[in-house]
């Protein structure tokens, strides 16, 4: 049951108004009234949406548990036949969690970027893009059906393109932006095909002109295929209606054993939708754009590439839990990709020297964790990790932002060090966030990551040999890696003494004014540090929302999200392990976190330990080779360039050549043939008219000329000719009759 709640539309509408205001009037306002006229509206709008989200929260609380759905239908978007795509927003428990995370972290980041982008001339453009991003993310999250969600999905891709190539006069930023958008488009290609498959699967077959629904209720001619028919929810794109259809047993049976290209339809839909999630949430094959996306300003990386956009894929899988839960192959596929990405990205993080790149790879790996959770069927854990990750990753990114600001756009950790002295608040918040992400007890990361590992370990419907254990092992190693490279980044930047003497690393923000005097780093202004403090606090407190059942403490989030996912509960089976096993795993993961921390501390504390330098310069071929491969990110980018990009480039040239040389040449050929025919026609025509007259004359003359050759007075040639002629006549006579 759904209750109408028109205020929902204001949540995405407010940032849209903010974006429009800044886009249209921002430039003039900034010129006349300075930065305040730009960033205040830009901050107030997301704040408004946050407030409304809170109001919606209280409204939901007032509703009974299984009816907590708020609807705001705006208008019929595509009312064609039984396609009933309406432009409407829905707020249920899952959306609320996402909305609160997006709006809260978004507002904080808006405040943070006031300080960070202070000297940026196109200040207004930044805030309009940021607000536009908030709008599209909220549309994505609040979307009631696939199409509205797809609007948000692509809108978010567009804003990430705009924001990554914000400093567009730098060619590599523009290329990075384009790469992000194109790779997202590849993901959307998968998403669209998944949607097509679903939509086609659900609708009935055209049976002799009448539109027969699968259950045989023959709905007759076109005039009846109108809006009411859509209400019969034969084939709809709205999540709720699709979920209801899947509860109907007979429909699900037929859907399951319907084969397309030899694979069951459900698996195909799941795989293609997951391709969309991969593109958006940067999983294995399509993650290449995220590290390059660091070319954008740091608040952008914090907001988009850590907290909100990249989690869209996880939200989508959670939203479509009733599809993913149906097919064990699908679940194991999602889990496997998640685990693989977690491990893969974590390993790359070891040797990165650019602080933002480290965080980018850690995001990719944490997303891998979320997909493990969602793949295994523990959807609420995935969302829980998503929330905690949003907090501590945003805190890490903003921390690195203030570090970069402090060291005058120095991103290379080798040129930093000992910043604890200069930037105490950033250091502490960064440490707390590291604590959380590594998974130390009582920090947010611990609860969510440990829960994921436990759920993976105990999951029953994975098709892998060891079932959950195989995934658990990969997850544990990834967690170890996470702890290691996070603390490595902490020690390299904040301990030891400052190595960044040489002024600017490479001065690519030429128009970026210098904040304070040149060389010694300095703490960021308080509006940045307050945000860091809040996020640091949250990354600790955030964990208490989802305390493990083990400790018999109330698990608020699980309780809150349960009604959303009860549709697929009876498909998720858990292998029965004694209680003690959970304790052991918890202890093991804590042990792994501390081990990672200790190794990092041993190697990188105060940057005194020569070992890392020695590894770099080691003669041993194998070590050197491993180091090169890993530090060059397994050459994945070069691989893609060499294969896909070169292939496309060659193919386009082929097409163009073919178009110019063949198709066009044919047309011109026809043209020239026409001309030639015309030319001859002209000649023949003039020939025919007076040709008849001088033609005969010409024939006689030429005939005579030839004959005269014979009359040469020599008797012998006469005789010869007569003889030959005689013989010829006889022969012809003989042959003819």
């Amino acid at each position: 049951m759904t209750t109408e709640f028109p205020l929902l539309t204001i949540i995405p509408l407010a940032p849209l108004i903010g974006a429009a205001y800044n886009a249209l009037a921002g430039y003039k306002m900034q010129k006349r009234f300075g930065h305040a006229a730009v960033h205040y509206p830009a901050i107030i709008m997301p704040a408004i949406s946050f407030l409304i989200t809170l109001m919606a929260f209280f409204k939901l609380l007032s509703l009974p548990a299984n009816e907590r759905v708020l609807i705001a239908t705006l208008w019929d978007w595509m009312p064609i036949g039984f396609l009933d795509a309406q432009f409407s927003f829905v707020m249920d428990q899952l959306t609320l969690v996402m909305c609160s995370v997006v709006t809260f972290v978004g507002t904080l980041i808006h405040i943070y970027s006031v300080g960070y982008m202070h000297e940026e001339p196109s200040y207004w453009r930044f805030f309009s893009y940021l607000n536009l991003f908030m709008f599209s993310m909220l549309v994505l999250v609040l979307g009631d059906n696939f199409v509205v969600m797809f609007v948000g999905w692509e809108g978010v891709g567009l804003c990430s393109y705009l924001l990554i190539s914000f400093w567009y006069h730098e060619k590599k930023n523009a290329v990075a932006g384009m790469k992000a958008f194109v790779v997202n488009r590849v993901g959307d290609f998968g998403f669209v095909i998944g949607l097509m498959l679903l939509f086609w699967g659900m609708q009935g077959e055209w049976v002799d002109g009448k539109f027969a629904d699968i259950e045989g209720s023959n709905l007759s001619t076109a005039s009846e295929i109108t809006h009411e028919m859509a209400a019969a929810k034969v084939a709809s794109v709205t999540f709720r209606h699709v979920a209801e259809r899947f509860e109907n047993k007979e429909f699900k049976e037929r859907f399951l054993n319907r084969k397309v290209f030899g694979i069951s339809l459900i698996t195909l839909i799941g795989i293609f939708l997951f391709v969309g999630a991969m593109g958006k949430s940067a999983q294995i094959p399509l993650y290449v754009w995220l590290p390059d996306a660091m070319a954008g300003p740091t608040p952008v990386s914090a907001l988009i590439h850590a907290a909100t956009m990249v989690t869209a894929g996880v939200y989508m899988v959670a939203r479509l839990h009733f599809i993913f839960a149906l097919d064990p192959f699908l679940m194991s596929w999602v889990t496997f990709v998640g685990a693989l990405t977690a491990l893969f990205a974590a390993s790359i993080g070891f040797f990165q020297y650019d602080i933002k790149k480290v965080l980018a790879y850690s995001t990719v790996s944490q997303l891998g964790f979320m997909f493990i959770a969602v793949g295994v069927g523990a959807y609420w854990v995935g969302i829980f990790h998503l929330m905690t990750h949003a907090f501590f990753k945003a805190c890490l990114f903003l921390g690195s932002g203030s570090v970069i600001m402090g060291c005058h756009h120095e991103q290379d950790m080798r040129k930093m060090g000992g910043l604890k002295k200069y930037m105490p608040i950033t250091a502490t918040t960064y440490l707390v966030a590291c604590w959380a992400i590594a998974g130390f007890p009582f920090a947010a990361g611990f609860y969510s990551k440990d829960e994921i590992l436990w759920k993976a370990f105990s999951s029953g419907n994975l098709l892998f040999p060891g079932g959950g254990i195989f995934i658990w092992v990969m997850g544990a190693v990834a967690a170890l890696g996470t702890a290691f490279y996070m603390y490595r980044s902490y020690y390299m930047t904040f301990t030891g003494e400052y190595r960044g003497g040489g002024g600017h690393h490479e001065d690519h923000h030429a128009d970026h004014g210098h904040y304070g005097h040149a060389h010694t780093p300095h703490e960021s202004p308080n509006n940045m540090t307050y945000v860091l403090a809040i996020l640091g606090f949250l990354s600790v407190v955030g964990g208490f929302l989802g305390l493990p059942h083990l400790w018999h403490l109330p698990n608020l989030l699980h309780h809150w999200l349960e009604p959303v996912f009860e549709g697929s509960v009876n498909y998720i089976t858990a292998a029965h392990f004694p209680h003690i096993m959970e304790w052991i795993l918890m202890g093991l993961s804590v042990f792994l976190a501390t081990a990672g921390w200790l190794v990092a501390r041993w190697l990188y504390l105060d940057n005194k330990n020569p070992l890392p330098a020695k590894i770099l310069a080691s003669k041993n071929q194998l070590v050197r080779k491993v180091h090169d491969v890993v530090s060059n990110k397994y050459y994945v980018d070069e691989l893609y360039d060499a294969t896909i990009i070169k292939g496309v480039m060659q193919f386009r040239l082929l097409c163009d050549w073919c178009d110019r040389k063949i198709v066009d040449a044919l047309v011109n050929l026809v043209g020239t043939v026409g001309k030639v025919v015309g030319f001859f026609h002209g000649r023949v025509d003039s020939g025919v008219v007076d040709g008849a007259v001088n033609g005969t004359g010409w024939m006689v003359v030429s005939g005579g000329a030839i004959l005269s050759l014979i009359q040469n007075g020599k008797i012998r040639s006469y005789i010869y000719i007569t003889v030959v002629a005689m013989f010829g006549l006889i022969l012809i006579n003989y042959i003819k009759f």
Partner: protein
Amino acid sequence: MATIGAVHFLILAAAMFCLGLYCLMGRRNAIGLLMGIELIVNAANINFATFAHYRGGEVDGYIFSLFGIVLAAIGVTIALAIVFALYRNFNKNIEVDEVSILRG
């Protein structure tokens, strides 16, 4: 060897006819030409005679070959007269190819 039928004689006559023809075409001397003509007429006469002989001795064949001989004789006389005229007016040269005043 098979008995000699009319065919043998005919082949012989044909051979003579062809040699005569070749002589007619091949030689450059006017008199050589006449010899060629003689050979051809002989070949014809042999044919007449052969058929006369091999068709139960009808005499017509023979008469024709007789006439053939006579005509050949007349032919030669006239031809030689021309040759002499030619010889006299062409400073002693009776090459056939030179005599081509009538060419067109």
